[in-house]
């Protein structure tokens, strides 16, 4: 006989009877730090659709430059942030790989916008993600995850490499740091707000 997992009160949406949900996507290529960023600001332990990296998948994914990473998100993981007693924000993360297109459609539908996490050492890996976000017509900001010791490209070069519009925000962040991750998210929301004026 199966039984439901025991959740405590913090697992439930605070003030759920008055809340409406919105979502923002946190996207980026394989192993760029999406799960870390979501985890650093989520009020719940990030949940996922349970797919973790398996041996079989490792043969498919390109692991160059990411040695030491044993598990990763291959589908979708997400966190939650209660904004007010009216709005609860969900953050959804998934890699930018074509084989997850069905999941992308699900995630993108009705999203406020997207934060695209970028590794300055693997810029080309971000192209498919940016293509997908643009394909779904989502507005976005770029967050450059500042890995230990990785030199930071100057912004102009990065903008040129990623072919960004002039008003697309570019911020650097440390995905492990709550305040830094929140600042990146704030930059995105301010940008989205600018576009509604």
């Amino acid at each position: 006989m199966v039984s439901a997992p025991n959740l405590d009160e913090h697992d439930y949406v605070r003030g759920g009877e008055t809340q409406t949900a919105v979502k923002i996507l946190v996207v980026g290529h394989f192993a760029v730090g999406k799960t870390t960023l979501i985890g650093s600001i989520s009020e719940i332990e990030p949940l996922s659709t349970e797919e973790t990296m398996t041996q079989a998948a490792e043969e498919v994914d390109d692991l160059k430059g990411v040695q030491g990473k044993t598990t990763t998100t291959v589908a979708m993981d997400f966190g939650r942030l209660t904004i007010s007693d009216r709005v609860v924000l969900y953050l959804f993360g998934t890699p930018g790989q074509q084989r997850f297109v069905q999941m992308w459609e699900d995630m993108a539908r009705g999203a406020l916008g997207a934060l695209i996490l970028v590794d300055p050492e693997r810029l080309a890996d971000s192209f498919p993600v940016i293509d997908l976000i643009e394909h779904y017509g989502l507005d976005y900001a770029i967050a450059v995850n500042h890995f230990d010791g990785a030199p930071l490209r100057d912004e102009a070069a990065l903008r040129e490499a990623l072919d960004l519009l002039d008003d697309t925000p570019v911020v650097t962040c440390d995905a492990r740091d709550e305040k830094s991750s929140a600042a990146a998210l704030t930059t995105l929301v301010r940008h989205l707000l600018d576009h509604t004026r």
Partner: protein
Amino acid sequence: MTGHDGWLPESAELVRPYVITRGRGLPDDEQLSLITLVTASADHAQRPTRLSPEEQNMLELCSAGYLSVAEIAGHARLPLGVVRILLASLKEGGYLVTRPPVARARLADKEILEEVLNGLRAKFG
């Protein structure tokens, strides 16, 4: 993983998804989106129980408050598609109350974005 005492996700993997869903097809995407909030209706305890074990688990999971469809899938460790079908059938039977997310037409709404922005600033400075 804590908080999953007594929950045996393996049991779900022993049967093919269409058995769990009794052959029902996928409901309308818009009806139960990833962030539709779901809770058990107040009178669900009085209803006759002709629910499958999976449906009962689902109902139990959302009996103490609101969870999004995505969270229910995450906690139940079942595929999203399966969870959607189970939730749709529970909703049809009057066991669940759902709160749809902010309508797409209102997403570009300044008010909502301002609320999110202020909320983030208040929380993280």
